[in-house]
C-alpha cells in the first residue's frame, strides 16, 4: 500500500476478510483516497456501519469507527451527528443493510437532510449470509432464496434517496474508480445528506449464481452496462433497460438538520 495511505488503515488488521476480487476493498480504498485528498482531520472523522461483509470496512479504517447492528448505522450516526456536529460522519453500508432492514432509517435520514455521507456497497446480494436476494437484486437474477429467479423488483437507490429528500445523490462503480473518488469527495464536501450508490461486485455469491464466475466477468458487465447521466438523458427507456447510469443525479442547497437544531436551541434560550 502507498505510504501516504497507510495511516488511514489499521494495518495490523489487514489483509481483510473479503474474498478475492470482492469490490468492497476497492470502495474502501476509494473512500480513504477521497479522505486523503480532502485532508480531513482523522480524529474528527467518524465512520459508522451496520452488519454485512461491507459493514466490516470501518474495522480496517483508522478513524472513530462504530460497527452497529444490521440496518441501523444511520440511526446511530444520527445520534452522533446531533450530539457533536463537528464530527464528519460517513456511513458505509451494504445494499441489504441500507435498503431492506435499514430502509426506514435511510429515507428518514435523507428527509432530515442531516449531514451524513452514506456510501452503499451495492453488490445486489446479501453477501455475508451466503447469497440471498436483497431489495437491490435485479428481477430474474438468481439467489439462494430465489432459486427460480427473483420476482421482486429492485429499488433505484438514487431515485429513492432523492425523493426522500437527500440533497446530494450520485452513483459510481468499482470499475470507474477515479470518478468514484471524485464523487466521494463531492459527497463529503456537501453539507447535508449525501448518498453515493456504488455498484459493487460479489463474485462469490452473486457472480457464481448468475453465470459470472469471476470478478473479471462481473467487472466486464459493469463496463458494458454503464452509461453516464448525460448520455442516459438522450436514451429511451428501452435503451436504458439493464443499464447502470453513473454520475451525479442531484445536488441542492437546503438547510442542514443540525444547523436547524442550533436555531432551535437559540430560540429556546430566548434568542430570535
Amino acid at each position: 500500500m502507498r505510504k501516504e495511505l497507510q495511516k488511514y488503515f489499521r494495518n495490523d488488521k489487514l489483509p481483510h476478510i473479503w474474498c478475492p476480487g470482492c469490490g468492497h476493498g476497492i470502495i474502501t480504498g476509494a473512500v480513504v483516497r477521497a479522505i486523503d485528498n480532502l485532508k480531513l482531520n482523522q480524529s474528527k472523522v467518524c465512520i459508522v456501519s451496520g452488519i454485512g461483509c461491507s459493514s466490516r470496512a470501518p474495522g480496517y479504517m483508522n478513524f472513530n469507527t462504530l460497527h452497529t447492528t444490521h440496518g441501523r448505522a444511520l440511526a446511530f450516526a444520527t445520534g452522533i451527528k446531533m450530539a457533536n456536529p463537528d464530527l464528519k460522519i460517513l456511513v458505509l453500508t451494504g445494499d441489504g443493510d441500507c435498503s431492506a432492514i435499514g430502509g426506514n432509517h435511510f429515507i428518514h435520514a435523507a428527509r432530515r437532510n442531516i449531514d451524513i455521507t452514506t456510501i452503499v456497497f451495492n453488490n445486489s446480494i446479501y453477501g455475508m449470509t451466503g447469497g440471498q436476494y436483497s431489495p437491490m437484486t435485479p428481477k430474474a437474477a438468481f439467489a439462494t432464496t430465489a432459486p427460480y429467479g427473483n420476482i421482486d423488483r429492485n429499488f433505484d437507490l438514487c431515485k429513492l434517496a432523492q425523493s426522500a429528500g437527500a440533497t446530494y445523490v450520485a452513483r459510481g462503480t468499482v470499475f470507474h474508480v477515479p470518478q468514484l473518488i471524485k464523487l466521494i469527495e463531492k459527497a463529503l464536501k456537501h453539507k447535508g445528506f449525501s448518498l453515493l450508490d456504488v455498484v459493487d461486485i460479489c463474485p462469490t455469491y452473486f457472480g457464481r449464481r448468475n453465470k459470472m464466475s469471476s470478478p473479471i466477468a462481473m467487472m466486464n458487465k459493469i463496463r458494458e452496462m454503464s452509461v453516464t447521466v448525460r448520455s442516459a438523458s438522450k436514451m429511451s427507456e428501452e435503451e436504458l433497460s439493464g443499464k447502470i447510469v453513473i454520475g451525479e443525479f442531484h445536488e441542492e442547497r437546503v438547510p442542514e438538520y443540525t444547523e436547524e437544531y442550533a436555531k432551535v436551541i437559540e430560540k429556546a434560550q430566548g434568542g430570535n
Partner: protein
Amino acid sequence: MSKKIILMQGNEACVEGALAAGMRFFAGYPITPSTEIAEISAEKLPKLGGKFIQMEDEIASMGAIIGASLTGFKSMTATSGPGFSLKQENIGFACLAEIPCVVVNVQRGGPSTGLPTLPAQGDVMQTRWGTHGDHPIIVISPSSVREVYDMTIRAFNLSEKYRVPCILLMDEVVAHMREKVELPEQSSIDIINRKYLNPSMSVYKPYMDYDGDGIPPMMNFGDGLPYHVTGLIHDISGFPSTNADVSKDLLNRLMSKIYNNLDDILEYENIYTEDAETVIVSFGSTARSVHRAVYLLRQEGFKVGMLRLKTIWPFAHKAIKKLKQTPVRNLLVAEMNFGQLLETVKASAEGAFRTYGLNKYNGELITPQEVINKVREVAKHA
C-alpha cells in the same frame, strides 16, 4: 433557601431528574403512557443547550442515544411495551459495547398493543432478558413521583458508573399520577460521571480494565485517539475476536462488574418485616396499595410486613436471605402480571417460606382490599 413544593406528574419528574443528572440528549418515539417524557424533553433540553430528536421508530431512538453517548452526552430514551420490544436488539448492543444510557419503560397492559392506557407490570422478565444472549443490565423501579425523580438520577449514575444500560421501569400509574414534591437543590444531588481516559495517551485500548474494577474508562469519539466499537465479541483493543478465552473473559467481566457491586446497586425497603409472619413483596405502583394494606392489617393486629424492591434486576437475593433470620413464614408476591417476579422469589426462598402470588392482569390496580383479603387467606392456610 426556600424550597419549592410543586405538583408534578411522574413523567415530568422523570425529565426533571434526568436533567438534574446531566441528560443532554434524548431520542424517542411517541407512545402512551410515556409520551410526556419526550414532549417535556423536547421543550426543556434546548434551553440547556441539550438536544432532542424524534426518531422514525424506537429502534432508531435506541441507536441514536447510543451514538450520542459515544460522544460523551448523557442520553436517554423513553417508551412503553411495543416500543420497548423494538429497542431490544440495540439494548443488547449497549450492554456488550458498554455504552452508558438510560431507557425508561412505562409499562402498560400487554402483550402486543394490549391496554395502552392502563397499568401493568408485565415487562419484569423482558427488562431482564428482553435482548438475546447473556448480558448484564440494571433495572430500577419507582413507586412515587418523588422517587421517579430520584431514581432517574440514580439510573444515570448507575449507567455511567458501570457502563451499562439502566432501565427505569415505571408503570402507567406512577407515570401519570400527580403528587406534591419538593425537589432537592441541584448542589445537593450526587452526580456520577463515567470514568474518562486522558485523551492524550498514545495507545488506547478501549476495553482494557485499566483500574482493575472491571469498568474500562471511556474516551469520546472525536476527543483523542480513534478507536473501534463493535457489537461483536471483542478483545481489549475493541476488535472482533472468536478466541474462546477472549469471549469468556469479556462475558465474565461484563457480569462481574455488576455482580461484584451488588451492595451498591441493590436497593430495597423493609417495612415491619422484623416480627412479621407474612411479608408482601412488591414494587412500583403496586407497592403503594401494599403499603396501605400493611398499615390497615397492622391496626387489626396482623403480623404483616412488606419488602419493596427498588432494584428489580439484579434481583435482591440478599433481601430474601435476610428474611430467613426472622419469624417470617409466608411470602406473598403482589404484582400486576401472572407471577413473573414470584418465580424468582420462589427460587430465592429455596423452600424456606411458603410462597403465594397475588396477581392481576386486567388493567386494574391491585387494591389495598385485595391485598388484605389475600393476607387473610394466606393466614388461614398457615
